[in-house]
């Protein structure tokens, strides 16, 4: 049972709404487009409302308006943030560079956090992890060699726009097949996750809604 909603009257109503919405979504399976479109619009509308509510209740009011209303001088960074947000919103009616400043800060900061973290937290430790420890067995050494070979092939696959010899070209093509294999394996994992979701929805209809198997 999903048990995300309580067993009271509100919970029963929510279960019925969820079951009917599930069936309306699946109506596309028998070619009924209109009910499917309704559920799509319902989802889009609810998602928009939820995101707006989340932004207002959990970010804008408690982390921006309340602190600034209480002590504006004590929060210079929030004032700066508010100014940048205002520049972004009003950028359409202002000179182009005004809107470009907050966008540049946003992109630069995001890239700095993501790239810095990836380098220190993923790339370097994973490379170190690849190196066989002293006294490591042949299996670990073989694993390291295979990992280096796969990583090298994939890197060679990204060599575009340069004159390549036959060997490098062939290795790059092999790298593209390795990447394709990786994407295929990941899609297989995704199919498995989605099948569990489908089975869970079917079990929800059978047990929570229809009461079978309780």
């Amino acid at each position: 049972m999903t048990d995300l909603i309580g067993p009271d009257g509100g919970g029963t109503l929510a279960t019925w709404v969820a079951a009917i919405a599930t069936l309306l979504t699946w109506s596309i399976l028998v070619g009924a487009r209109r009910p499917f479109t309704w559920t799509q619009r319902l989802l889009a509308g609810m998602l928009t409302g939820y995101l707006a509510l989340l932004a207002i209740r959990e970010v804008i009011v408690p982390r921006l308006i309340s602190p600034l209303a209480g002590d504006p001088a004590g929060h210079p960074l929030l004032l700066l943030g508010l100014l940048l947000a205002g520049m972004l919103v009003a950028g359409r009616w202002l000179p182009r560079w005004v809107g470009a400043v907050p966008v540049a800060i946003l992109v630069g900061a995001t890239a700095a956090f993501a790239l810095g973290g990836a380098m220190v937290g993923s790339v370097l430790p994973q490379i170190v992890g690849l190196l066989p420890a002293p006294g490591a067995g042949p299996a670990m050494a073989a694993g390291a060699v295979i990992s280096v070979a796969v990583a090298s092939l994939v890197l060679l696959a990204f060599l575009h726009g340069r004159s390549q010899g036959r060997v490098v070209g062939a290795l790059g093509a092999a790298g593209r097949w390795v990447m394709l294999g990786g994407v295929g394996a990941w899609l297989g994992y995704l199919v498995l996750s989605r099948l569990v979701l489908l089975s869970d929805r079917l079990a929800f209809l059978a047990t929570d809604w229809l009461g079978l198997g309780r």
Partner: protein
Amino acid sequence: MTEPLGGLRRTLPLAFVAIVAVGTLVGIRLDLGPGAGPAPAATSLHADLAELGRGRVLVGFDADIGTYAEIRPAVRAALAQLVRGGATISMVSYTPEGRALALAELDRLRRGGVEPGRLLDLGFHAGAEAGLVAGVSSIVPREADGALAAALRDAGAGIGAFDAVLVVGGNDLGPRSWVEQVATRLPEVAIFGIVPTSLLPQAVPYRASGQLAGLVAGAREVAAYVAAVRDDPTTGAVQGAAQVTDEPPSSLPVLVGLLLTLVLLAEAIASRWRAPARGGAA
């Protein structure tokens, strides 16, 4: 000329769902289990969470609605284990989807009788990875009150105030982001993860390198972990949120669905091979 198999092809999605539905119903009626095999990672997570005892645990809840069904039994089993052990549970989310699911799980824990003083809702934190980094120094919101919030503030109010972090992954900000942004700044805080199969290739290297203290990834390990918590001989009779009530789905419909997917894939590849042959003949 109309495709002779066109009508049949149009009914394939319905037939697919119908066959998986039959598999699901058979699984429910016959009470078929998920087929949990030995999984050292699940046993290890169970032992590690048991060691936390009455510690302060931060749950980074950023599951994805599309994959949460797969890991939900393990997440609930982990929460049940933490409740049994006497740990306090604080939940934070960095994605809107994760926040919606975290609220539902917090509500379920409250309905399950967990004392309010042992639960703390740290809310939604905007800023994605920048928000994670900000959480290293300050994660307890100003409006949070109670003894747990006060204790966390006394301990610094950041992620370092917790004994361990349990990351519920599935969305953009999963165990990888926590390792990259938090573990590099707070190496002393143990980070555990529960992720769906789709994140398995991304998360497993961090378990192998020891950057994640523990990880349960995919349906098989989820089933093994749930079985480990449910059949824990060290705990007596438990009630409410300490119980394991959410079992992983039977593997029968998933197996049936995978076989059908393979058949459909093979048919699609074969039809692509046939198409040039027909074109050549014409």
